[in-house]
């Protein structure tokens, strides 16, 4: 009897903890479950869908574990004991078959959603996309606006409801560009250009960071992505145009290893600066 | 062979184990081939494959290596008939052929380095030197192994241990030949067009 009480206790405590966990994830503190951008929302939906689908297998596993532990415990004299029962075609068909079906369903959904949520895929919208070029440095992020002729460090802005196309590279070891509340993540690699598309439907300040270790100051590779109204964005661009000019020489100074967190704005006259950064790695003598 | 090998279990499991080791060596070379295939166009402004490869030298190397495979085969045939002197002669010839191969490759590498086209010049050259060089290092170890087998054979005659050693050495040598054929085709033939 004592064994059974123990098992009940464990089952109850486990269920309680599980419910508490689920309740917690529902709270708004968990940004990935409560994001602020369309891409992140779709990614969250996929996460929830897959989790629920897998419950078809996971819940029976937990239930069976408890039931068998209870029922076939050696102290339970009433249970059937079949020491040589070691195969069943129907049961095997069940546990090869049902997971197979689940994986098949999930595969179709995955194929579809992976294509729809491809970071390189432009976001359908009636508004013109804003291009922001991103350079991962040691140990901060530089944002270039080729369409507006401005640049900023450690913080950048873009208007809400407007699709944004990030063109990303690095002048440092491999980093990863990630804004959890807006969704999507892609590596920033020297000599290469990756792309990420995103859009946000609400104003706010969103934390971004690098998700791949790049040296001593890695923990400081935090930046702020600020989503604002169109008018505020235009004002920000104007103030950046009054700031100091960023040319290639100035860029090289910025790119030196530092852990400085100061947010700065620049005017960008050389709209091809981004290509120059990448080019350093492609021509002999480019990095001197 | 039955009259030489007394402990069949030891012979068979050693030879089998050696084949398994060669399987792992193939994976090693596969990684190098993959790297070469992916990097051979990354010459970073330096010379390309077309500019560097001398098919004449490579042809000579190939002939030498293929012939050495033939001669080591003959050595083993004599070994299975327990004719120690002939085995030693043909092992010696194999050694000289293998040595010529290594020397030829060494001169090819030296030439490249003196021209300024060392492995530091570009990813292409790094992958070239490493792939061809790894094969060359394997052949060099094979040469040491031939000397080792030669000495033991001369001292102890054709006992089952020496026969087993010669068997695995032969398999190793043929394997290196096989890798060379891939190398020759993928690196030199495809690169020199």
């Amino acid at each position, binding site marked *: 009897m004592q064994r059974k009480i123990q098992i009940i206790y464990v089952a109850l405590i486990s269920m309680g*903890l599980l419910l508490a*966990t689920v309740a*917690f*994830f529902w709270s708004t503190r*968990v*940004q*990935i479950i409560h994001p602020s951008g369309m891409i992140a929302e779709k990614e969250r939906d*996929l996460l929830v869908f897959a989790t629920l689908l897998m419950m078809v*297998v996971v819940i029976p596993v*937990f239930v*069976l574990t408890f039931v068998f*532990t209870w029922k076939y*415990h*050696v102290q339970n004299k009433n*249970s*059937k*004991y*079949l*020491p040589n029962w*070691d195969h*069943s075609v129907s*049961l095997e068909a069940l*546990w*090869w078959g049902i*997971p197979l079906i689940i*994986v098949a369903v*999930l*595969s179709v959904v*995955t194929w579809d*959603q*992976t294509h729809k949520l491809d*970071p390189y895929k432009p976001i359908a919208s009636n508004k013109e996309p804003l291009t922001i070029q991103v350079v991962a440095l040691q140990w901060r992020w530089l944002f270039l606006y080729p369409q507006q002729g401005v640049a900023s460090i450690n913080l950048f802005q873009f208007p809400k409801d407007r699709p944004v196309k990030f063109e990303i590279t690095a002048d440092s*070891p*491999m980093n*990863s560009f990630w804004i959890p509340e807006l969704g999507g993540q*892609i590596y920033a*690699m020297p000599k*290469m250009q990756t792309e990420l598309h995103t859009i946000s439907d609400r104003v706010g300040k969103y934390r971004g960071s690098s*998700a*791949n*270790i*790049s040296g*001593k100051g890695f923990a400081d590779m*935090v930046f702020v992505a600020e989503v604002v109204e169109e008018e505020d964005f235009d004002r920000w661009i104007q103030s950046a145009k009054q700031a100091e000019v960023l040319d290639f020489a100035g860029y090289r100074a910025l790119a030196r290893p530092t852990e400085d967190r100061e947010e700065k704005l620049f005017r960008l006259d050389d709209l091809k600066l981004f290509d120059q950064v990448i080019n350093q*790695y492609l021509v002999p003598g480019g990095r001197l | 062979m039955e009259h030489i090998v007394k402990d069949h279990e030891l012979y068979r499991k050693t030879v089998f184990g050696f084949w*398994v080791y060669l*399987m*792992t060596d193939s994976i090693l070379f596969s990684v*190098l081939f993959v790297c070469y295939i992916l*990097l051979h166009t*990354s010459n*970073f402004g330096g010379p390309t494959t077309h500019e560097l490869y001398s098919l004449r030298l490579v042809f000579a190397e190939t002939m030498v290596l293929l012939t050495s495979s033939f001669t080591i085969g003959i050595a083993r045939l004599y070994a299975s008939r327990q004719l120690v002197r002939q085995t030693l002669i043909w092992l010696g010839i194999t050694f000289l052929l293998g040595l010529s191969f290594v020397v030829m490759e060494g001169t090819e590498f030296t030439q490249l380095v003196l021209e300024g086209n060392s*492995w*530091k010049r570009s*990813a*292409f050259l*790094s*992958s070239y030197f*490493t792939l061809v060089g790894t094969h060359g290092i394997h052949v060099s170890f094979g040469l040491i192994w031939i000397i*080792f087998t030669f000495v033991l054979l001369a001292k102890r005659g054709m006992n089952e241990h020496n026969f087993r050693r010669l068997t695995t050495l032969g398999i190793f040598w043929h394997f290196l030949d096989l890798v060379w054929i891939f190398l020759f085709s993928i690196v030199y033939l495809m690169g020199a067009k």
Partner: protein
Amino acid sequence: MKEFIFGRLTLDAFKHDMIEYGAGVSMGLVAILVIYLLTVKKKWGWLWHEWITTVDAKKIGVMYIVVLLIMLIKGLIDALMMRAQQAIASGNQGYLGSEHFQQIFSAHGTTMIFFVGMGAVFALFNLVVPLQIGARDVAFPFLNAVSFWLFAMGALFLNLSLVMGNFGGAGWLSYPPLSGIEYSPGVGIDYWNWTVQIAGVGSLFSGINFFVTILRMRCPGMTLMRMPVFVWACLGTAVLIIFAFPILTMSLALLTLDRIMGMHFFTSDFGGNPMLYVNLIWAWGHPEVYILVLPVFGVYSEIIPTFSKKRLFGYHSMVWAIIAIAFLSFIVWLHHFFTMGASPGINSFFSIMTMAIAIPTGVKIFNWLFTQCRGRLTFATPMLWFLAFILIFTIGGLTGVLLSIPPVDFQVHNSLFLIAHFHSVIIGGVLFGFFSAFAYWFPKVTGFMLNEKLGKWAFWLWFVGFMLAFMPLYALGLMGATRRLDHYAADTGWQPFFIIAAIGGLVIAAAIGCQVLQFIVSIKQRKSNRDLTGDPWDGRTLEWSISSPPPFYNFAVTPTVEERDAWWEMKHKPKEKPVYKDIHLPKNTSMGFWIGVAGFFFAFSLIWSLYWLLPLSIIAIVTLAIIRLSDEEVEYTLKAEEIEKLEAQHGTHS
């Protein structure tokens, strides 16, 4: 001249901060204590003859366990330091500098995967496989010893880096360009490189060894389909090792060439391609995690039937599941870097293949559960670990499938969600499986039982500790926390979760304390806990048919097998009188140890650029190999009369 002799080695290599000094001094004190005890008890001869020169798989297995337990404690200390740092560093720098923190997590991962995980795999291979197939030893006993000494030298390097120089700070896989010579010019990455490379070569040799052993040295009558499922699992693991480890060897070699000879495989300029390294290292890395977990799946396939007093359910299914998992593990590697920018078609392919692996894994879980169904279950410690495994590994598997969906992965890649996932499967799977196996086979190896009560305490502390330490990490990952951060802003709200995780770490420390205590108490009580029958659990496979501990020749008479669960069948039939024959056993040799030492100096010379030591160590390795390989007297004969005498002393029931 000074540079030639000392290379990169200067007095600076010995300068460290207080914590590192403390660690180094502690290690030194332990070493001195061990040397003192050996000298006072006059055990040097015993150490040399019984352990350092042994080629007996059973002893080699014990040595693997010794090393792995030491490394487990070291890895745990690393973990506690990390947990403490992250619990404190909310809006401040914490107590550890960034570089030190980065070295700690890199060492933690390297230690746990290569020395605890792989150590457990090879310990189980050595201790159990020959016994379960009715063999006297492995196919290549000398190679087995070499494998162990290379493993031990790797562990030595990792610990040496604490005292002399420093360890790499680029993670347990050291991606370039960060690990290239430009961004990491010091010796740290080289230490990491050679630690892994040397241990890796040892692993490769073991893979070959056990592959040949299982295929060639089974006793008469033991066809492949009559082998215990544990042996099948080890066979699958050996195949994985054979195909995967050469990729690791080459990847590390190419990184070495980049660093030492100025090559450009993985540099970002000169035409190199860091993405190539990422692909290669994970082409090895994914099979590696299945190498770690497959033997543990095999362990459960042995333990559950024994403690359910029932045959394993679905033997054929289990075998095919192992083969499917082994095969699939080679075509999923890209799921470790969905975010590196591959096309959606490629990402989807690898995603679907990854999900497919969940199918045979689930099949195994159901077969274990239905082995229990309609059995008679008892819950000694080995079975408790199985229950924790079911809970935690299933959560790990579920989160694994979530991670395998690219768009979801974009949100959790390299976050603490990932860390929680792999700790769930590695601790819940590999580590708990190892603890289960340890409790199960301990009496066979040592001849006495482990203290059950302390075992149960350790189990509960581990279980609760694991939950406290890792469930908050799932939450943190979903809150946008990346991995490997040594400090973070206070307004992220992460600190409470890190504090809970740190408490969990302390509970785990208490659990390990319990296990150490269990070990000590069991040794003290060993006379009253003796296993006199050789079969304390009423087992089903051949290892339980001989005495505990087994005689050095394993089986006096090689058994002949007629069906699966060979010992279960044999013990319920009348016993025949044994007929003894002469047997050949391998002699002890110190060559394995010396080759390991020469390997150590080879790597040491490359780390510190001691270019005079390099050719000397290469010559030493080649010479030692030549001496050993030309030795034709490597076996001795044990006469039948001698065996009969030894058997009578044991009082066995073979």
